[in-house]
């Protein structure tokens, strides 16, 4: 079965999704600076194309696992923005009633099964989700998002080995932004690409540019079709640019600073907008409509979050253990 090609409707959906993520995160940076959102926040500006290109092809019953930089994945998978916003504000109307926060977003209804703050800790859990699908015998697929920093950790090697050994319907999606927390890939390993790390296992893998959303979409579509038959794993390595620092407030954020022309080449939104305009998939006005709609949704989400109260200690204490 050949992978499908991007069409106008899909391109518009991907653009709308990326703008929702971008506007949400830009506002998040401001809210964090103004202390309306507290705690540890990691933004994914620059890698929205991976979240959109992957998650928009998944069903609610397909599982994704994410990590500390999860906002984009979760929004693209279908989690309602107002509840994501309320979660980051620590309110009871949040996805996780305000107990998880930015790094631990879970939305079971939309297949967001877990996000971990321990780099790479999500990898074996995702393999477990894929094993469940295989045992059950359906066509569900599990996707795990991780950065190139996770690859040097032991859980990556263990998971890849088992996923290959048991041929699990697992799609590994690496956002290789060349930075592991605060330091560059060159300081962590001598292996250039993550695809090279898994090469001995022989499963299908490829490297794509993170700003090339049609390519991400197409490559993932091909893997998804195959994984739906209950086999795998696959690795999609996306070379992305991390526009902001490791976390909001990172004093070293400026080391990544690019000028506008350089950034435009690495910006998945700018790249897809240009292509979509050239192909006649969108007009200039509709691009502006997408950003305006995203802004309005973010405004509504902030109002929704503000209207909710934090959980009470008595309510939270009931959630430590599952009760019969």
């Amino acid at each position, binding site marked *: 079965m050949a992978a499908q090609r991007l069409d106008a409707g899909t391109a518009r959906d991907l653009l709308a999704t990326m703008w929702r993520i971008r506007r949400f995160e830009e506002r998040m940076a401001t809210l964090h600076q103004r202390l309306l959102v507290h705690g540890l926040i990691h933004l994914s500006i620059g890698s929205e194309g991976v979240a959109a290109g992957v998650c928009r092809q998944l069903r609610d019953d397909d599982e994704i696992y994410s990590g500390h930089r999860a906002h984009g994945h979760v929004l693209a998978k279908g989690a309602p923005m107002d509840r994501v916003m309320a979660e980051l504000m620590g309110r009871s109307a949040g996805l996780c009633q305000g107990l998880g926060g930015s790094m631990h977003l879970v939305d079971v209804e939309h297949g967001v099964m877990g996000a971990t703050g321990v780099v790479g800790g999500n990898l*074996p859990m995702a393999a*477990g989700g894929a094993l469940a699908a295989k045992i059950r015998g359906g066509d569900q697929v599990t996707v795990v998002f991780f950065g190139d920093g996770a690859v040097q950790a032991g859980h990556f090697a*263990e998971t890849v080995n088992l996923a290959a050994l048991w041929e699990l319907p697992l799609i590994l999606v690496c956002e290789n932004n060349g930075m592991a927390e605060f330091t560059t890939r060159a300081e962590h390993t001598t292996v250039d690409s993550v695809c090279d790390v898994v090469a001995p296992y022989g499963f299908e893998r490829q490297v794509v540019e993170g700003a090339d959303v049609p390519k991400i979409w197409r490559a993932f579509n091909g893997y998804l079709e195959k994984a739906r038959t209950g086999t795998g794993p696959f690795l999609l390595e996306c070379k992305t640019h991390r526009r902001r620092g490791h976390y909001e407030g990172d004093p070293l954020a400026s080391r990544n600073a690019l000028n506008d022309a350089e950034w435009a080449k690495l910006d998945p939104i700018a790249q897809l907008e240009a292509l979509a305009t050239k192909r006649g998939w969108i007009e200039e006005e509709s691009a502006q409509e997408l950003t305006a709609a995203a802004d309005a949704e973010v405004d509504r989400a902030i109002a929704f979050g503000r209207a909710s109260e934090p959980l009470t200690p008595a309510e939270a204490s009931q959630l430590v*253990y599952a009760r019969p």
Partner: protein
Amino acid sequence: MAREIPYIAAVNEAIAQEMARDDTVLFYGQDVAPSDEDPLVQSFGRDRVRVSPISETAEIGMAVGLALAGYRPIVELLMAEFMLVAMNQVTNEAPRLRYMSGGQVKVPLVLKAGYGFTAGWAGQHTGSIYTMFAGIPGLKVVLPSTPADAKGLMASAVRDDNPVVYLMHYLLVLEHGDVPEGEHLVPIGEAAVRRPGNDVTIVATGWTVGKALEAAEALAAEGVDAEVIDPRSLQPLDMPAILTSVEKTGHLVLADQATRHASAASIIAAEVAEHGFGSLKAPIKLVTALDATIPYSEPMEAFVLPDEHKIAGAVREVLGTASAVA
């Protein structure tokens, strides 16, 4: 109908019965059922009974993912210490997901491992490291000390909707005892009074339960009536049962195979000091392993461990009868 079988057979019986009862129960781990002739493989097939490579992080992490997806995995980990290489999954993922997700998910899984094999297995296969797990909110920890409890606590662990660390004691696996046939459940969180008594409370776990009972017999000959309580699980910990006993006896000795500062004894002592101080007629006494790595040498191994003589000696001390029998 109960009949006498070994502790290890009781554990295996519970696993087989739970797998037969519930299709979502899976069993995998290192060296599990290496042959297709294995009775579990024969009964339940290779989808549900799997051999895994030596990859504790992946084995336990996959169990979390399976549990989130609706299965009830039992992971065979052989030695409690082997969980140490996967502590992120054991203590930082499995027990926290329910809470961090605001109660959206449950994580029913059993981490089955042996512990306390102080029979020449030296420094890394002998630890009683249960408080590393018992201190983590969201985890449950059970320590069966009899064949009947080995079965009943395994069945309850499999049916529990939370991650349970099931620690079987390697010095007890060949001990025989009466075990009910068919369904047998022991509630997690309920202590057992192994021997009723009025003069002193001895709380003991796992292998030290038998040592405490031996001490109680010796003390009975001296006219001391000791009560022996086995908490059976450390998380949840049945403090009401312990406090009730201390209220009756006024004296408390805690026997524990763990090293003193990582012992369940130290946790129970703190709880009794805070909530049962008014009942105490003498200071609490802890009889634990010394704060040392378990040595290989046989006499040194015995030196660092608690035993029935040390427990009886501690009882005499708290009762103020030590000099009378010395």
